[in-house]
């Protein structure tokens, strides 16, 4: 049978070329796999949820509380089907798994990006993969936004209203963009079907394409290796073969991950659509997006009020806070590979403390994003009395620039301290080795980076 297949499909070539490919092993390398596993679970649970979800904002009678023939209790069909999903056996659990995997996927991809950045794995020849990874993260966030609009409760309704408003705030073409993206003037009859199409078709296809390309390029270019591989066999791949070692490891990790997610989901509920109720005129106090979009929300909260009229278009605080300003940090992320000018290909993960400016800049960037996310809690801080309404903006803007600067210089100081300790270690080791009355030549001695 094996020979029969091999004669026709050349399986042995596949085996030699791909299935025996060596994969370096390091615990931080599993972060990308966690992201991939989250995507797989999201697709599986998404398929199951899609079988019960009704993508329509037409009004239907609430089967849980029908009202009377004269005064029926009408709900949007999307919201109604969400209530029914919650009432299904395991329906609520499916929603929870789906929700938490979305959060975990973004979290794992962010940490994965941090690993790549701090160890210099974005350098030549891996710039393209860095950019593809960034695109995948952005589209993952967009998929998440479309996902929490679909239940079409009051929370989702207010969210999509803001998103529509932001799209419409683009100068010159905003109103057209908003109507094209959201099926007419808000809230058109087609708004939920449109967003459903984004969430289950367009965006997952983009995600699968970018993730697939990400992995193919990784295989082609070889994974970066831990430093220990350099000492074992310089410029050779040190790792385990894909089929016999790496795949079982990945399967075990997938099963453990899925088990932990289900355990977590069994106990921790997600967005309570029953509490928020169907779309209404009542605003939701302190409404907030998910953690990975809090920074954009924070920028919108602290940007001052202004409007510039330019050639018939309006550039206002909404467009600036939600699009122009966020484009700066995202643009910086895309520019990261261009900072490296080395001619040599990079094979080995680098020690972050050997590149203090890069390390400090990364830490400052994270601090910047954290402070903007904190700004998203401006209403809560004002309600709690931590900030005064009049001075909240000024204080938060000062923090937005001050905390990253402090983080940068603190990191530089710490790294210099580490370097000094390392030098002291080297001097002590050398001095100790030179003492003739005590020294015993050690053939196995190694110096460490």
């Amino acid at each position, binding site marked *: 049978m094996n020979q029969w297949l091999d004669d026709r499909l050349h399986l042995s070539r596949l085996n030699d070329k791909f299935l025996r490919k060596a994969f370096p092993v390091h615990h931080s390398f599993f972060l990308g796999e966690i992201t991939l596993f989250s995507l797989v679970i999201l697709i599986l649970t998404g398929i199951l949820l899609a079988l019960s979800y009704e993508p329509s904002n037409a009004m239907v009678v609430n089967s849980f509380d029908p009202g009377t023939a004269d005064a029926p209790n009408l709900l949007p069909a999307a919201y109604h089907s969400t209530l029914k999903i919650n009432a299904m056996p395991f329906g609520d659990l499916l929603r929870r798994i789906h929700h938490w995997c979305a959060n975990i996927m973004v979290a794992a991809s962010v940490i994965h990006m941090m690993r790549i950045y701090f160890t210099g794995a974005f350098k030549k020849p891996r710039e393209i993969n860095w950019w593809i990874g960034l695109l995948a993260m952005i589209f993952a966030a967009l998929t998440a936004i479309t996902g929490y609009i679909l239940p079409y409760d009051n929370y989702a309704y207010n969210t999509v209203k803001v998103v529509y*408003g932001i799209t419409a705030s683009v100068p010159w073409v905003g109103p057209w963009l908003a*109507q094209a993206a959201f099926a*007419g003037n808000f809230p058109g009859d087609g708004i939920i079907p449109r967003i459903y199409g984004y969430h289950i078709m367009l965006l997952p296809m983009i995600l699968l394409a970018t993730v697939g390309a990400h992995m193919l390029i990784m295989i082609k270019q070889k994974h970066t290796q831990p430093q220990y591989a350099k000492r074992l066999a310089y410029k050779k791949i040190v790792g385990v073969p894909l089929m016999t070692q790496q795949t079982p490891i990945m399967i075990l990790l997938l099963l453990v991950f899925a088990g932990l997610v289900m355990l977590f989901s069994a106990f921790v509920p997600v967005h309570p659509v029953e509490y928020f109720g169907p779309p209404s005129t009542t*605003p939701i106090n302190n409404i907030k997006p998910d953690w990975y979009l809090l920074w954009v*929300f924070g920028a*919108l909260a602290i*940007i*001052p*009020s202004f409007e510039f009229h330019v050639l018939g278009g309006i550039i206002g605080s909404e467009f600036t806070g939600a699009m122009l300003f966020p484009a700066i940090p995202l643009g910086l992320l895309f520019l990261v590979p261009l900072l490296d000018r080395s001619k040599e290909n990079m094979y080995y993960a680098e020690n972050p403390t050997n590149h203090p400016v890069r390390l400090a800049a990364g830490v400052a960037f994270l601090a910047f994003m954290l402070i903007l996310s904190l700004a998203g809690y401006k209403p809560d801080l004002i309600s709690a009395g931590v900030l005064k309404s009049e001075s909240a*903006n000024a204080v938060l803007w000062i923090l937005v620039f001050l905390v990253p600067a402090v983080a940068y210089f603190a990191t530089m100081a710490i790294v210099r301290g580490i370097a000094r300790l390392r030098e002291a270690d080297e001097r002590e080791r050398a001095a100790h080795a030179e003492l003739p009355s005590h020294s015993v030549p050690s053939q196995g001695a190694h110096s460490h980076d």
Partner: protein
Amino acid sequence: MTRYKREDPEITRRKFINTAFGASAAVGGLALVSALGGANPVFRLTRDKMPPYKGDMLIHAEGAKAGQPVSVADLSDKITRAWPQGKDKDGNPVVRKGDPNNILGLFKFPKGQIVAPTNLEATIDGEVVAYSDICTHAGCSVANDDLKAGHLNCPCHSGKYSPREGGKVTGGPPPRGLAQLPIKLEGDKIVVTDFFLGHPYPFTEAEWEARKKAVEDALA
């Protein structure tokens, strides 16, 4: 007799084909963009989507009294949300909730507290005032400011408004204040007397003028 001398062509065949393909792609792209530019769903300005219009009665938007006419006794310095209710061609009531931005906020303050830049002639006895309830920043519904009675706070990005002072912005990112709606008392009902003063969210000034004209044309 002079012998005709054939000159080499100025461009190669490959270059010609590439140029032709490039030009075709450019024209095709332009055509596609032009087609897309007109491809948005048709917006029909039905009566339920029109902004508040003179003669409309204000009805409660939420709570136990939803759908009932708003009376002055219902009002306070906290926001009371209302929809404008007009009539169709046959005189039947039509609630203008087809456009969610038609939601209104009504307030009643003791005489003398409502001051400029509020248009006092557009209030009822200088005590009852109506505004668009939609934040001019990102289109959220505005709510009472829990920390400051008689003031408004947008729960989305902490925009702040003062309904005693013409709905002007007192904090946060909104570019302009809430649009005031002229109202009067007819019997015990609150009735709209004209379009919003100023342009409500999401209209620019020009768009608002165009919308008003469209409404007048449709109802003429």
